[in-house]
């Protein structure tokens, strides 16, 4: 029997480190046959910290919200007496537990090992068939055949643009040049996305194996992983994984004794969103400012140090070993006509079950939000999903039957993106969401193209003005005009897609913009400058609001309803937060 604690960044943030320490401290009381181990993230971030009890025959029990104070009872009852604690169970391998629905609808290819193996032990990856795909392609030694399999599988780049991975490999293979490079883009800069972090933290070897297979396909001996420095745990686990793979001859000068040479080096990003764009990423690895350049020539022809370079993202590479082992058909039977396989989504925002899900392409947004993730928190109304981060857009609740595939999502004005899916409810102001993303892209613009550098700034000014209640007639048209200028006159994806959050919210939530501008009201009650605070009949005169008010705008006798003086009120929201009787109304 083994006890496994989920120690990804999200688990640790929820206190899994203390749980792990508590279990270790009590190992003296355990039977000799019971081992304690670590594992990555199974994706149920909303129930962290997670602890799993796994029998030697593979039977699994997953417990949620395992704070240190629950450890004693777990060890005593389940481990000691063999009696699982029903009320804490979130999932079991024989189909029980409160969160069964979350895992049942999923199809796990990329996340196949996440939460199953210890990411810091290569032995465990090897046990579940790790590096067998690499071994097979090296023994077959047929790179063109391998590329055909990847093309046939229909795997498209999971970084957002959705270019056929196999075609990209073929272009790089055919490009003339002795030295070629493989780059894994792990610069997951989209706010609201954490798929790549989880995969790197929970199953780093699958990415390394995918890269090595890609290296064999295109004829490269050197790979780079460009990983965000904001992900210290991913960096640490990748370093461990590379060292272990090298020590076992699974990476290095002579992989599997076949004479294939492949090295992997880590490059830590330095915090620039634009470096997710491939030419900017290359500039960054070369030690320059991360500024994109004109394409063509594409990196497949002229990339890193002017050599042919193949760039794929983390999720794409993690798919590759599975496709090699299970065949192209096993992969392309999942999905829609043009989008094959699965997609990992990072679910966040106002959703009940926030975390990581992997669903087959072709599933609808409604199914993901309601069936897999349990709908909206606190029974509120589902308003929209934001897909694709700052380059994407908002898909309103009316279009919840849109299916997940590259083309259908594009039709709505959003993009598939790397997989961040932020769920918004009725309390979210769409103008504020647009302002948030514009603020982000405006700061992250590298400054090369005038329209991206200045245009986003002007758009942001208009949006800020609207949210502050100073919107003018004609602001909506001004935004639309600027959006088309920025989109058409920027070199790279950052600028070309920066207006998307504004355009999609304008398309689906135009009335909200108009309410801000014409009526000076925020329908979602989020834009503070547009709120009016009043005391309603629930007030019992406790006086808490008056003490919280720094502007001394609230007066009233103790025990009698209080009054807010609107000429003094600064709309700081302190009274609203202080009141325990819902007696302050914001309109």
């Amino acid at each position, binding site marked *: 029997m083994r006890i496994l604690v989920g120690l990804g*960044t*999200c688990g*640790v*943030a*929820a206190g899994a480190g203390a749980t792990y320490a508590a279990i270790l401290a009590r190992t003296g009381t355990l039977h000799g046959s019971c081992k304690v181990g670590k594992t990555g993230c199974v994706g149920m*971030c*909303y129930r*962290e910290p997670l602890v799993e009890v796994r029998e030697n025959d593979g039977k699994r029990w997953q417990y949620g919200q395992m704070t240190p104070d629950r450890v004693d009872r777990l060890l005593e009852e389940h481990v000691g007496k063999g009696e699982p604690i029903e009320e804490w169970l979130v999932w079991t391998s024989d189909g029980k537990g409160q969160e069964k629905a979350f895992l049942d609808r999923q199809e796990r290819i990329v996340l196949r090992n996440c939460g199953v193996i210890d990411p810091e032990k290569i032995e465990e990856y090897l046990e579940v068939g790790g590096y067998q795909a690499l071994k097979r392609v090296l023994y077959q030694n047929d790179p063109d055949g391998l590329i055909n399999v990847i093309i046939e599988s229909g795997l498209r780049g999971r970084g957002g643009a959705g270019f056929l991975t196999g075609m990209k490999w073929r272009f790089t293979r055919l490009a003339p040049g002795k030295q070629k490079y493989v780059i894994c883009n792990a610069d*997951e*800069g*989209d*706010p*609201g*996305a*954490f798929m790549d*972090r989880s995969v790197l933290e929970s199953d780093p070897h699958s990415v390394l194996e995918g890269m090595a297979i890609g290296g064999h396909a295109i004829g490269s001996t050197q790979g780079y992983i460009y990983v965000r*420095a*904001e*992900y*210290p745990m991913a960096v640490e686990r990748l370093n461990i994984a590379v060292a272990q793979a090298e020590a076992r001859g699974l990476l290095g000068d002579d992989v599997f004794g076949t004479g294939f040479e492949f090295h992997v080096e880590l*490059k*830590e*990003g*330095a*915090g*620039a*969103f634009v470096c997710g764009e491939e030419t900017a990423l290359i500039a*960054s*690895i*070369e*030690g*320059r*400012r*991360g500024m994109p350049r004109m394409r063509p020539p594409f990196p497949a022809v002229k990339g890193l*140090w*002017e050599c042919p370079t193949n760039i794929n993202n983390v999720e794409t590479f993690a798919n590759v070993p599975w496709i090699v082992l299970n065949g192209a058909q096993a992969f392309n039977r999942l999905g829609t006509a043009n989008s094959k396989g699965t997609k990992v989504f*990072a*679910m*966040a*925002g*106002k959703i009940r079950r*926030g*975390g990581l899900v992997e669903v087959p392409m072709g599933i609808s947004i409604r199914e993901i939000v309601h069936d897999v993730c349990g709908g909206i928190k606190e029974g509120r109304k589902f308003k929209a999903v*934001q897909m694709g*981060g700052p380059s994407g857009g908002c898909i309103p609740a009316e279009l919840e039957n849109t299916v997940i595939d590259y083309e259908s999502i594009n039709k709505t004005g959003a993009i598939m993106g790397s997989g*961040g899916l*932020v769920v*918004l409810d009725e309390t*979210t102001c769409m103008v504020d*969401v647009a302002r*948030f*993303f514009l603020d*982000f892209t405006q700061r*992250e613009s*590298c400054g090369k193209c005038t329209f991206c550098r200045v245009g986003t700034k002007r758009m942001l000014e208009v949006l800020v003005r609207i949210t502050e209640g100073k919107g003018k007639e004609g602001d909506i048209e001004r935004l639309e005009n600027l959006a088309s200028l920025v989109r058409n006159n920027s070199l790279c994806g950052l600028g070309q897609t920066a207006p998307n959050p504004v355009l999609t919210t304008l398309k689906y939530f135009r009335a909200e913009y108009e309410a801000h501008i014409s009526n000076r009201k925020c329908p979602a009650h989020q834009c503070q400058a547009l709120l009016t605070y009043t005391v309603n009949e629930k007030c019992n005169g406790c006086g808490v609001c008056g003490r919280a008010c720094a502007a001394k705008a609230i007066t009233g006798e103790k025990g009698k309803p209080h009054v807010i003086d609107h000429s003094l009120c600064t709309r700081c929201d302190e009274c609203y937060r202080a009141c325990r009787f819902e007696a302050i109304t914001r309109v």
Partner: protein
Amino acid sequence: MTSAAPGAHDVEAPRAYDFKNLHYKGAGGVLIPLLQKFQVQDGYISRERIAEIHRKTGVPLSQIFGVATFYAQFRQHAVGRNIIKVCHGTACHVAQADGISKALKDQLRVGEGETTPDREFTLETVACLGCCSLAPVLMINKDTHGNLKPADLRKVLKPYREQKTKAGS
């Protein structure tokens, strides 16, 4: 490379890097890793360090300065002992991360990017820490804290303060 006499600020780093990319395109490839190493060491990138990297690698001063000011990671000013990074990603934004930032500013009496007078804390914001399902989130040094409320912050900061009193006493 110059053989300057080793001083207090002498750089050992270039030797730690074997300059394996030199034969492709100069020393450019090591520039960002070098800056990162110095930032870990000093907490920020000083002008002296920039000059030093230039001397040892031959990368033009303008390029080093350009890179050091381009990337959000590199700071140009000294920082406090603990660095607080408040996440302002999408999920954190809709979960009222602004309230967290505001509460911290009030508590520490500093603005964004500033350091407390006792040099204990530097307050920064970051685009996304990738812990979206635990929003709002902040990171202190290398520890991530999630599901925060403005009222919890005093408790979250406390252990980081105590470290110092112990070390100082």
